[in-house]
């Protein structure tokens, strides 16, 4: 069974991932400023080229990629470093709230 906090974080993550999709489905809105900048992808390869290409072709998709990447990285890194701290043998259970 997941604890209440874990369930809440999980639901919020799903909600956050769904937020841009809902906004998109609803027709979205016009970006506040007309975009004039273009990513120069001529001299880059791999991930840098891919993000630059997405940025140049579809900004709504780029916004979605940004949110999904940050949320996934947050979850993965959070879990990984949490496991690492556990290996140090520290007591990481509930804290008493002392002022």
């Amino acid at each position, binding site marked *: 069974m997941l604890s209440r906090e874990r369930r*809440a974080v999980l639901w919020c993550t799903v909600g*956050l991932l769904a937020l841009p999709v809902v906004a998109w489905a609803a027709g979205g809105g016009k*970006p506040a400023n007309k975009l004039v*900048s273009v990513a120069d992808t001529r001299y880059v390869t791999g991930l840098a080229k891919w993000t630059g290409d997405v940025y140049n072709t579809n900004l709504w998709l780029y916004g979605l990629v940004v949110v999904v990447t940050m949320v996934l990285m947050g979850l993965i890194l959070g879990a990984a470093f949490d496991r690492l701290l556990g290996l140090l043998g520290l*007591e990481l259970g509930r804290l008493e709230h002392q*002022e």
Partner: protein
Amino acid sequence: MDAFTIYLPIAGLHFNVLLLLLIGFTVGVCGGFFGIGGAWIVTPALNIFGFPMPYAIGTDLAHMGGKSIVSTIRHGKFGNVDVRLAVSMILGTTVGMELGAGLVIYLERLGLAESVIRKIYVVFLALIGSYVLYDYLSHVRRSRRSPAAAGTPPAQQTLAARLQRINLPPMMHFKTSGICCSMWLPVLVGLVTGLVASVLGVGGGFIRMPALIYLVGCPTLVAVGTDLFEVMITGAYGAFTYGVKGRVDLLAAMWMLLGAAVGAQMGTVAVKYVRGYFIRLLFAVTIFIACASVLMKQLEFTTVSAVLILTAGIAISLVILGLLVRGVVRERAERRLS
């Protein structure tokens, strides 16, 4: 150092990866410890190293969402996140931010936005810092007079206790915070802090955290964890809205998040080894430094202001890391003895 320099095609500049990791790590430590987003450190830091301001803000907001997830997971396990309270506050925060945006547009029409906002910002920071410091000093005086009562301030006399007694249905019990009050109290606090944050153009962590302590009556650690929950939501929304406007450099945000995830974990675990009032003291010091930085910006010493805030951020992170190391060493020694 050239080996660590990468080209960021979206921001259109070459940037040192180690610098991104350092900025991320610094703000991660401070954010996890104080329960704030830390835009006031990251935005000027990125800006002085060459990021155009809109990209600095957008990239900061993007990494803030991911970093807050790391801290919120850890604070959740420590029992420091009051989800019910956070959700109640988010309702008010959203409305407050919209009202604040309207007020800014009105001030812009009058041609007063820039100067008025910066002056309000300085006054606000000075007031919050002074009050938190005054509260800490009162606590020290109380504990000298009667060490047994150090952790128990006269609850009936506090502003939070008075606000909690307002009997306006529906009344709610916030179990993690250990308080019972009208649902309208956190909604109203969220509205006011959201309005102020929106007018000042900041995420609002440094306003919400003390508001949760002094107006709602949360224990310090719950205020830190609950505030991070809100920062997580606002950060993710900010990442999307700035991403759609093309003002986020994803590569830079990813590198910063890598550093911030390590820092956030350390900053969050450090709260285990300090008492709530010590967090308040360090928070007051941080607020005063931020206040000095904004004042310098007002006097048009922009570079000095950014350097000051970055240096101060690194110094505060080192203090927090020192507390963490001391706590871990003590914990291990105690375990060996027992």
